């Protein structure tokens, strides 16, 4: 009955409506699918990470006494204010920034270079892939000990290079006694242990480059550099920015190597935010201050990575 009462223009409108409804129902289905895809993972993530993180934020606003039943007075932003005036904490931020500035570019460049070399056909490439990955899987305890030997104050490997090979110094250097030489040793360890990690991600990314494209470029007489620049690089741009951001965050969160090599010493010279946080929280039992320190770090890193993310990906939609 409704059909008979319809005018032609009404029929057109209904058809258009149907289309809209179909596409909007498809959009709804997609939205629903999106939620369903995210839900299980995000539930675990929210419970295990975000919920404790919120609690830790609350701790940082109190003078927390650890044991239940004792009063923990609210102190507002006092812990944050204290941290921002704490010379040791500020120095630790500078140390972490220097560590990041040193290690990230090296890991990206060397990791990418090795990945490109091991991407194409090369007899024995699996062996090399394993060898370059070994530092990643070696235990931190072991490699930290080893690097302490390499940078020992007497006639160590590092000193023979600096004194006899490069003539940078007339006498042996006590690497761990000064801030920047100690940070250099720590940064070299970080770089060495991280190269295989970025290499692996780049290797995975390079598989997205169609072989035909590389071969065609090679037939055109394009040199290796040009082939990389115009064929491989565009394909791994996204992976590049992912690695960059992950390494950047990891650099500011450097912890185990510093803890094992210098413990932040001598006299807090090589303190980084997380070793300082650990000392405040677990040695001095000042969890509130430790939390404030770690959230200032988180805020700083987040702001800087957001900036980077926006910068490197501004041409692409998320």
């Amino acid at each position, binding site marked *: 009955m409704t059909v008979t009462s319809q005018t032609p223009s009404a029929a057109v409108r209904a058809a258009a409506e149907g289309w809209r409804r179909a596409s909007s129902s498809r959009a709804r289905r997609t939205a629903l699918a999106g939620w369903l895809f995210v839900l299980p993972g995000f539930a675990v993530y929210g419970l295990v990470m975000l919920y404790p993180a919120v609690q830790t934020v609350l701790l940082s606003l109190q003078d927390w006494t650890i044991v239940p039943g004792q009063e923990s007075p609210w102190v507002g932003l006092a812990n944050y204010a204290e941290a921002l005036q704490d010379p040791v904490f500020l120095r630790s931020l500078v140390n972490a920034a220097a560590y990041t500035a040193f290690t990230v570019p090296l890991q990206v460049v060397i990791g990418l270079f090795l990945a490109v070399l091991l991407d194409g056909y090369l007899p024995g490439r699996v062996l090399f892939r394993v060898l370059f990955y070994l530092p990643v899987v070696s235990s931190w305890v072991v490699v930290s000990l080893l690097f302490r030997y390499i940078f020992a104050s007497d006639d160590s490997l590092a000193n023979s290079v600096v004194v006899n090979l490069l003539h940078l110094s007339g006498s042996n250097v006590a690497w761990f*006694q000064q801030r920047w030489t100690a940070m250099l040793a720590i940064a070299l360890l970080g770089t060495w242990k991280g190269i295989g990690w970025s290499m692996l991600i780049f290797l995975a990314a390079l598989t997205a480059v169609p072989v035909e494209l590389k071969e065609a470029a090679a037939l055109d007489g394009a040199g290796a550099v040009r082939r990389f620049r115009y064929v491989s690089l565009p394909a791994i741009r996204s992976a590049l920015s992912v690695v960059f951001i992950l390494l950047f965050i990891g650099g500011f969160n450097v912890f185990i190597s510093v803890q094992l090599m210098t413990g932040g010493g001598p006299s807090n010279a090589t303190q980084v935010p997380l070793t300082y946080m650990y000392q405040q929280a677990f*040695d001095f039992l000042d969890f509130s201050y430790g939390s404030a320190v770690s959230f200032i770090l988180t805020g700083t890193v987040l702001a800087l990575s957001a900036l980077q993310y926006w910068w490197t990906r501004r041409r692409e939609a998320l």
Partner: protein
Amino acid sequence: MKHWKAGTAALAVTIPLALAGCSGAGGTDESPAASSSDASAGLSGTVTYWHAYSEDSQEVATLEDVIIPAFEKANPGVTVDAVTVPYDELHQKLITAAAGEQLPDLVRADIGWVPELANLGVLEPLSTSMSDFQDYAEQVYPGALATNLWKGTYYGLPLDTNTRVMMYNADALAKAGVEVPTTIDELVADAPTLKAAGSYAFADNGASGWNVLPWIWSYGGSITDDDVTVASGHINSDASVAAVQMLVDMYQAGYIPSIIVGDSGGLATSDGLVSGDYATILDGPWMFPIYQSQYPDFELNTAQMPAGDGGSISVVGGEDIVMTSTSQNKEAAMAFLRYLLSEDAQLAMAKTGQMPVLSSLTDQLTAINDYFGPFVEQLATAKPRPVTPAWNEINTILQDQIQSAMRGDVSVKDALDSVATQADALLAQYS
């Protein structure tokens, strides 16, 4: 206050003893308090015990195969669940468990943790709740017992103890033609001769309390008052300043190697002593098994801490046994605690290299491990580090300031004045 407590403890001791005498006649509740192994009818349940004994030595094996079976045999209803925790993580695990009210019944705690845990309120005050506490307190070395005292109450008992004595390389001394130094003055006087012969007079791997307190105390200095309420006038007293000045002068003259200022790339004290680079070091009894296996040809010699105006005074190390206030099975836990302090258990652990705390065993120690001798002698005068929850922080400040003075950034007097001011503020938080 103290008298009152001692009085009740003494009183409490007599009651269970009387009950033990007639335990056949239905001494039900009280009998567990009647100490050690035999009068333990009615005890049951599980006692959880966290410790960081070394898995690789005989320590864990002795605990699990000798001590616990013996205790369980004497107390058939009780099971002891011993949990080995890696030493580096035990403190973190304890703090986390305290926050979650998941602490075990008993903990073998580093002596430095007791005031901290007591201050958190998670420890059972043994001097009030353990009826025969005073008995045990009288049997153990006073220096080790003192590490359990927090605000007038004892929260634990010592379980094992140790101290640092001087270890020397006899060849290095002979090469320089010097005698084994018995006083600090002799060591200082010998330093140039030793340097000429290619050895550092003394080496240590830091400037924390564990490292520098023997020198400060032996000079007649101190770090806080006896009640651990104030540091000013103690850590920056003339004697303390003179002691640290001596170390600073020795370092700056090249008689002490740079590992003392935190050069973690330097030669370790244990290696340097063997090679003769270091003529003397200060270290604990655990070095003997290490040297035996690592450098079997090296003859490790010991002497007492060199004496100064204050005598020859070293620093007490070791572990205490504490009970948690959340323990659900305090009676059984108390029984096991008592057993750990029995002569049987203490002697069994002594064989693994753990120095007993019972003064009654002193004479037997050298028969078990002859290297215990000099440590026992040194322990007679050794002092504990200040017993306060603030010690970790004060210790860090102390090390930083002394190292700054060694590097020449600040005078010793100014450095120690700064320690005193900061330590006063920290101590005030806990008074």
